[in-house]
């Protein structure tokens, strides 16, 4: 049959190439899930029998080889909350300035460069900066305050970038509509820009939280303790923390039962995953309400 629409040899060859790349890239993508799956399955299997109400509600006992993780959980909450109190207002304010007020000149370019570089600084360097700046110079001592501020500095770029991106996702025509009715920049930001970017900003904040929860280096010299038999009562106290606790029982304490570190690790990952899912669900919910 010779019709002008018959498949040619070249068509077949292109089709084979098409299929090849589709399968190849598909397989690569699927492989990426394997590490995550392996980690999760290992943690779940090995931490079998560890979890109970007591695991979450009791202090570690017997040289941290028994008992629960209660003070570490509480400590992590403290660290994250104080870090948020510092980084969210600063980060959002900076992002608003950069997105809504700043002109494109050498100063804003330097600031942007600084933010990108700040995001690339290794966490151990942040830790040493925290010791120098907050523990020693400002004389906060090793405390929740010093540790949280270190975490805040480290996560500021995340907040700034996420906030700026969600501010810039608000169409310029909305701003112009406001300005042309005589609105000031601030009236425009407060009444229109922020309400329409809040979903993105909150997503950024939650992602920041999930990152903060897992950080170890920045807090180990600045405010987190190996073991404390009491809960912190103010930001000037030291505290235990989940991430450091995991490090300690995995490497520093002899005779820890096999399942314990896995249980702590699974709890830590669980917190992060719950937060990330919450952030995604929340974003989907707020996006659904948007009408543009």
């Amino acid at each position, binding site marked *: 049959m010779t019709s002008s629409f018959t498949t040619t040899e070249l068509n077949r060859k292109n089709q084979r190439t098409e299929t090849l790349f589709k399968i190849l890239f598909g397989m690569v993508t699927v492989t990426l899930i394997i590490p995550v799956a392996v980690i999760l399955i290992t943690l779940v299997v090995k931490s079998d029998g560890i979890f109970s109400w007591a695991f979450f509600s009791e202090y570690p006992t017997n040289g941290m080889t028994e008992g629960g993780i209660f003070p570490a959980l509480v400590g992590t909450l403290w660290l994250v909350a104080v870090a948020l109190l510092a980084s969210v207002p600063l980060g959002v304010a900076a992002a608003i300035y950069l997105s809504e007020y700043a002109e494109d000149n050498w100063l804003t370019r330097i600031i942007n460069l600084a933010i990108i570089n700040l995001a690339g600084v290794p966490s151990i360097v942040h830790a040493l900066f925290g010791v120098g700046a907050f523990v020693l110079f400002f004389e906060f001592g090793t405390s929740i305050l010093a540790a949280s501020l270190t975490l805040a500095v480290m996560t500021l770029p995340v907040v700034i970038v996420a906030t700026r991106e969600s501010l810039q996702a608000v169409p310029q025509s*909305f701003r*112009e509509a*406001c300005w*042309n009715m*005589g609105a*000031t920049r601030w009236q425009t930001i407060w009444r229109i820009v922020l*309400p329409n970017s809040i979903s993105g900003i909150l997503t950024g904040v939650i992602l920041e939280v999930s990152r903060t929860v897992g950080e170890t280096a920045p807090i180990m010299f600045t405010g987190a303790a190996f073991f404390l038999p009491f809960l912190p009562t103010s930001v000037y106290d030291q505290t235990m923390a989940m991430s450091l606790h995991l490090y300690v029982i995995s490497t520093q304490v002899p005779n820890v039962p096999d399942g314990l570190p896995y249980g702590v690790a699974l709890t830590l990952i669980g917190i992060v995953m719950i937060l990330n899912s919450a952030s995604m669900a929340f974003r989907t919910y707020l996006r659904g309400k948007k*009408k543009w």
Partner: protein
Amino acid sequence: MAVETKGLSLWYGSFQALFDVDISIREGKVTSMIGPSGCGKSTFLRTVNRINERHSYVRTEGSVKVFGEDVMAEGVELVQVRKQVGMVFQRPNALPISIRDNVLFGLGLHSKKKPSKSEGDDIVEKSLKRVLLWDNVKDKLGTVATSLSLEEQQKLCIARLLPMKPRVLLMDEPCSALDPKATAAVEDLIWELRGEYTILIVTHNMAQARRASDECIFMLLGKVIEHTETGEMFLTPQNQATADYIEGRYG
């Protein structure tokens, strides 16, 4: 005169967009501005409420008077200029808030205390009736304005200027994003508003200029070529360039 410019020149960086423009716009009339793209008509419009100046590379010379007062003078409050000289854009830019809040938005910017519920209702009804939108939206004032049709949004964009009691309305190709039926509806509305408001409208649509304006200004390369009563311009253009343009020989 509602708007009067004398020797108005404007530069975008080193490019001169307006040359020594003298224009007088009569109060309560609809004046349309026509001319090929890049002739400076939108630039002129944007100079009247000084929104061109948002770009730091724009420089102007000459005077722009609105009801006898120079808006370029030192000490002029831009917020007051923008409030009294309202602007409607090509793309309807209703805000992503409720229809009611859109209408009351401008008022909220310029008054210290919020209008009471009944005052607000009153203003919303009056403004929406004025733009012939009330019957369509009276049962859904709480819905987000960006879900309205483009025609309705454009009418809303006009309605939300009215509570601020503007004296001049500038419209930059207000119908070019609309289909013919919606265009006709908005044109009717513009015609409706004349008398109470002075309206200056930039358009690429010759038929629209002819249908819906009292006076017509033809611009070319940043200069005013002709400014006469609309009927006269379309029947007996004085300048050859005007004649060529309105007959569609270029543009």
